[in-house]
Every structure is written in structure tokens, then in C-alpha cells.
């Protein structure tokens, strides 16, 4: 086995592992592991409808945020 192949294999596996680590860190940071009960219980109610409403909620949030920012800009004296 040449050292190049070993290097490639190491690189590929570390890259994949790195993706998993980043995903885990993201989950940790965004508070998905904060409530262990939720972790277990919320799964029961996971369905399409909830998924849709989660997307809608996200949209609503962004809309409100944009509105707020626009408003704040208007407040500023030119």
C-alpha cells in the first residue's frame, strides 16, 4: 500500500468524521440536547403537519425580523 492511498483514506475518513462532529456541535449549540425529555417525547408527535408548521414558523420569524429591522431603520434620523 502506498503512502498516498493511506493519506487519502485518512483524509476521507477524517472528513466524514469531521462532518459528524460539526453536526453534533451544531445540535449542542442550538440547544437540541438541552431537554432530554423533549428529545424522547417530541418524537411521538413528529409528522408532516408539524414539519410544515415548523417551516411556517421559521418564515414568520424571518418576516417579523425583517419588519422590525425596517422599522428600526426608519426611526433613525437621516
Amino acid at each position: 500500500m502506498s503512502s498516498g492511498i493511506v493519506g487519502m483514506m485518512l483524509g476521507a475518513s477524517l472528513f466524514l468524521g469531521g462532518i459528524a462532529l460539526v453536526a453534533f456541535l451544531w445540535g449542542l449549540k442550538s440547544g437540541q440536547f438541552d431537554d432530554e425529555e423533549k428529545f424522547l417525547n417530541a418524537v411521538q408527535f413528529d409528522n408532516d403537519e408539524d414539519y410544515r408548521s415548523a417551516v411556517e414558523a421559521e418564515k414568520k420569524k424571518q418576516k417579523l425580523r425583517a419588519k422590525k429591522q425596517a422599522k428600526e431603520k426608519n426611526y433613525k434620523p437621516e
Partner: protein
Amino acid sequence: MSEKKKIACDHCHLEFSEDVMIKDGDHYFCCNGCQGVFHLLSDEGLDSFYEKTKNVKLAPPTQQFEDSKNFDSPAFYDKFVKTDEEGFSRVALVIEGIHCSACVWLNEKALSKMEGVIEANINYTNNKATIVWDDDIVKLSQIVDMIRAIGYNAFPYDPSIQEERANKERKDYYLRMAVAIFATMNIMWVAVAQYAGYFTGIKQDMKTILNIAEWVLATPVLFYSGWIFFRGAYYGLKTKSINMDILVATGATLTYIYSIYITITQSGEAYFDSVSMIITFVLVGKFLEVLSKKSVADALDIMGKDIPNEVQVLKNGETVATKLSEVEVGDIVLVSSGQKALFDGEIVKGEGSFDESSLTGESEPIYKKIGDTVISATVSIDADVQVRVSKDFEHSTLAHLTNLLEESLNKKPRIQQLANKLSEYFSATILTLSVLTFIAWYFSGHSFDRSFMVAIAVIIIACPCALALATPVATLVGLGIAAKRGILFKEAAQLETMAKSDVLLLDKTGTLTQGKPQVVATKRFKEFDEDILASLTKLSNHPIAKGVFNSLELEDFKEVCFTSFKQHPAMGIEAHLGEHRYLGGNKKLLKYFGVDVDYESERSLFFFAVDNEVVTVFELEDVIKEDAKEAIDAIKKRGIEPVMLTGDHKNIAKKVADELGIERYYYELSPEHKAAFVEDMHKQKKIVVMVGDGVNDILALSQADIGIVMGSGSDIAIEVGDVVLLDDSLQSLVQSFKIASTTYRLIKENLLLSLIYNAITIPLAMAGYVIPLVAAISMSLSSLLVVGNSVRIKFSWKKG
């Protein structure tokens, strides 16, 4: 008619007979509340809630709600609502009435569907909700109305900044540990290949590839996970003390630089695995310490928690809700029964009893009438009074107490831990030794490479992994053993402090005694209906009446409804049933009604008279806890001196102290006196443990090296205390001393183990007999040794 058919309500699923149910189409409801919620949910498209609950029984929604407009008051916003950086409002509420996970789902859904609500997040474990909304679109009162409309209720809750900060710190450690552990585990795999290559031969180019892979992995560990050590080292240097962080940081960095040099020049062995292992091990040890640390200021938050932000002030014959800071001297403030007095002043109207236990520790209520002074921080039991304010809030007794508490929490001495003391010397010694080793080797004619490698080996082998783990692992074992016995230590370091203590201060009421009067003797003059006495005493909140009620052995208690009932403050209760008049209370009450009684006792007396004839008398006394004597003896045997401090009178104090064999006791002490006593002890260089339960003990508890609180004690005391005895027993107190000293012994053993290990290996490393590779392996062995020793103790406790 036989058994009526029972039908379940379509909302709450409680079953009732058909004829009381409200029929609404195909649905049946037990009350209007349930019907309302059911329709609301189907209108909102949230009726899939009922599929999710699967017939879990809910509480029917209550309908009498106080005005939710309170939630919109500026005072409320001031205290509970925070504005985040994006300009949205944020509040934390505790939601009442959550029974199952579907309830959480429903609340989150219903709230996030509301116009203007951005986020509604409810914790499944503690039912605390965080709600974020745009205050321009929707008001908090509307949000609360929604929660109430779907059958729940909400209370504000002040998420203390401290708690938030502690969580943040913990999360930070999680992130750093995740990176460190991930990288170290992968480095191990690579290292296996390298070690195999070391013994069986490996091509240089292959070695370089492996080195580079390790380099990539070790970099985030050193600079991201190890950031904590660099920070610690920086602060250490700033305060001119050599701490363990400096040793870890320099050791890891030097090894890292050396390994990079090896990788680039393609000569010798790289030790990236040691770098990441040192950081990971010590980081885990540090994390264990952080986990068991409590924040000091939490106690202050809880003190403020039950202080409302407004009081009712009487102005021109009208009551006006006024902010605390706006109340002026001379204003008339209303205090109703059950409320805490927030201002000091004089009663101008009304009378009743006050609970002054927060100042004196005694549960006996004090009767106050017009002209008497009310002290803030005391609680009205049955008094509805108007008080003329004599001091503004900032100068009130309550504010004074809070300030004192803050002061004494800051004054709390921190006994330096053995490991910290050791590690200072240790780190300095190791760093010097490794520099000396380098100099000695270099100047005795060896190459720079060789000398540097030996110096690195000294640092790696002395890496304080075992030392760093020695204390946290031992205390964790101690905490675990204690928690299983209902003893909660809030901070690991307290175990060590407690093991070193010399004096034990004990509060009397509630700690050595039961804290509430109990019937110790009864005398019956005539037969009577016990149900009537029970009903009579049940109506009163007075501790004496409660004591009498508890002493009655009622098998089949039927509560009697009196035709009229009256409380005579500081005397007793008068009740009428049909033509009979019943009196229950002390001698004063009987005298007041012209009943002659000839009965004397030192104890508190409760007479019961039917139609002006005394039928029975109870003698009540605060009884000493059963295990108190035994516990005091056991503590004396440990060489700790017990001292009793009480706010009670001399006679009672002497009696209790004599009975328990306590030689030193002090009586009629105010909360400040108790705290001063603790300070006195500190001046004599004594380590003080204080046991108490009440608000009057908090100053002393917070100032003592260790404050132990009974689990049934007041909230604030539990918050201030360092150790909580959940079962209130003094046996647990003895146990906690025992656990503390066992743990301390374990810490010493662990430290000794790691020091012996270092004493053997460091000279070998300095002599150049140990290559860094072997040093790295033996380093892990020493850590295992320490952990193994701690686990041994755990098992020996299980047997014993």
C-alpha cells in the same frame, strides 16, 4: 335506579354520570370550561391534540382567573420581560397544568400560531416556557390569555442570570470536550499504527503521512479545547502564581512545537497523541469540577423572588398599586393576611398575628394591634392591617437583610483545597526540573534534539493528569454516596472543607427540635365529641391548633360545619353549633368568656370548653428529635465541638442543651448575632459548620464555612446552604461528616499515589531512560490508578 351510566368528558376525559354532562352535538362535556377549550382547539385546527393525549385525564380548566392585565404593567415588564438584541421581548413562564407531553405540544403549537409570537419553547422536564414575541403586535397579557384559554395557567419566573451563566459555561465545556474527545479517539487509531511501526519498522514517508494526520487532529484540541488552559495560565501569570494550567499549557505547547519540528524535518518520533491526551484528560477533570460548583448569587435571587414589585397604597381613600421604590415615608400601605410585610411601620388600622420567624426563628405568632410596629420581612398570618410606612424600601429591614446576606456571601471563606495547594508547588518544580534537564544535557555535549526530547519527556511524564483527576474523581464518589443517602452537597470542594472542620453550630428550633409544638400531655375532664374539636382546630392556622389537630387520633373523621366561627387573635377560636358554644384556646380566651380554670404548666396550654365548661386540656411543647442525643454524641466523638445557638429564652435553651449534653449554648440571639458569632470563630482560626433551617439562620449559614440546611427549611435557607439534608434527620448530619472524612482520606490517597508515581518516573525521565512514547503510555496508567482507587472506595461503601 341502578348504577347510572358514566361518560367521559371529551376534553378532560374525567368520567361523570350522563345527566350532569353538557351535551353538545355528539360531544359530552363535564363543564363549560372543557367545552370552551374543545371548541377553541377545533377552531384553531389543533384538535389532533386529542389523538395525542390518548385518554390521559386532564384537569378541567378553572375559570376564575385574576386579571391578566397585570402582565402588561410596567412593573411586571421591568422585572420579568427582557428585550433581546433584535428588539423582541422575551419572558420565562412556568406553565401550570401540564400532564403529558401532548400538553407541551399543544401549548407550543397554540402559542406559536399566535400573531406576533416568534418562539415558544417549553421544557418537558420542568414545564418552564421561554416565549419570544414582538411587543408591537401582541401583548404579553394576550399570550397569557391564550394559555389560560386552552386550560392551563402561567406564572412568571425569573430565570436568574446566574443560572443562565452556569448553563452557558457548562455548554462551553461540552463543546470543547466533544472536540477533544473526538480528536483524541481518532489520534489513538493513528497512534496504534505508529506504535506498531515503531516496533516493527515503518517507512519514513508513511510515518510522515501519519504525523500529518495527527497534526491536523491535535491542532483543534490544543487551540480550541485547550484554550481554557491558556486562559488560566494567563491569569495565573498575571497574579504571579504558577498554577496547573501553566504546566499543562507549556507542556502541551512545547510537545506540539517539537512534534511539528519532527514532522517537517522527518526525523524521530512525533508526540501529537500526548498533546491531545494531556488536554483531554485534564479538561475532563476540570469539567467534573465545574459540574459540582454552585453559584453564589443564586440565593439573592430567591430572596427577591417572593417580593412583589407593587404594593397597595391607600391614597385619598382609594387603593393604588404603587412601585416599591415610589412608596414614601408616611404613606399608608395595606398588608392583608398571608402577605409578607415589605415596609417597616406602625399599624394605624386593624389587628392580627404576625409570623416573625424570619427574624427570631420561633414559630409562635406575635399579636399586633393599632400602634404596634410591623417589621418588614415578617408575614401576616391573619391580619388585615393598614401600616404607616416609617422607612422607605431601601432602608427597610428587608432590604437590610438582603444587603447583609449579600455581604456575608461574599465574606464566605474559601478554604484552599489540598490539590490546589500541591499543584502550585508541583507545577513550579516540574517546569524548573525540565529546564534544568535540558541545560544539563545540552551542556554535557548532547545534541539539541536529544536534550530537547529528554526535557519534553520530563514534562509529559509529569503531566498532572493523575493529579488533576485525583480530587474530582474522589469527590464525585463522595457526592454520589452522599446523594444516595439524601445528603446533597452543592459543591464538591465542601467535602474537603467539612472534613477539616472544628466547630459545629446548631440552631435549636427545627434542627435539634421538631420545630412545631406537639402535644406531650393531655388531661380529660369530661367526655366530648372529638369530631367537633378536630373541626375547630382544623379551621385555625395557628401552630398550637395544628399541633392539637395532629395529636387527635381520628379514625373516621367527619368534619362539622359550624353555624358561626370567630378567631380571637392571640387567644383562640370561638365557634357555635346549634345552641352550643365551643371555645378552643389559651387561658386568656377562657378568662375573656368568664370561664374559670385552675390549671398551671410551664408548657403552652390549649383548653377546649363546651358551653363554658372545660372538657379537656392539652400541654404542648417543641419536642427534641429522637436521634438528636445520639447524633451529638457521635459528633463529639469525631472531635468536633457542638455549640447551640438559639433565639429562644434561656430556660428553654438550657433545658435542651442539658438534655443533649451540649456544654456551650447561647440564647436570645438575633440573626446578626449568630453571624457575628461565626465571624468570631473565624477569628480564632476555626473552621465552622453551621446547621439551621430558618430564615433567621441564613446570615450565619452563608458566613459559615459550611452551611447545612434541613430539607424542610425555608427556600431561602436551602438556597444559601451548602449542604441539604433531605430527610431532616440528625443521623444524616453524622453521615455527612463521615462521608466527608472518607472522601478527604481518598483525596489524600489519590494525591499520594500520583506523587509516588512521579517521584519514581521523573528521575528516570531526567536520566534519559524514558522516551516520550513510554512516558505517554505510563501517564495514562497513573490516571487509571487514581480512578481505580476511587472506585474501590465506592464499592467498599456499598458493602458497609
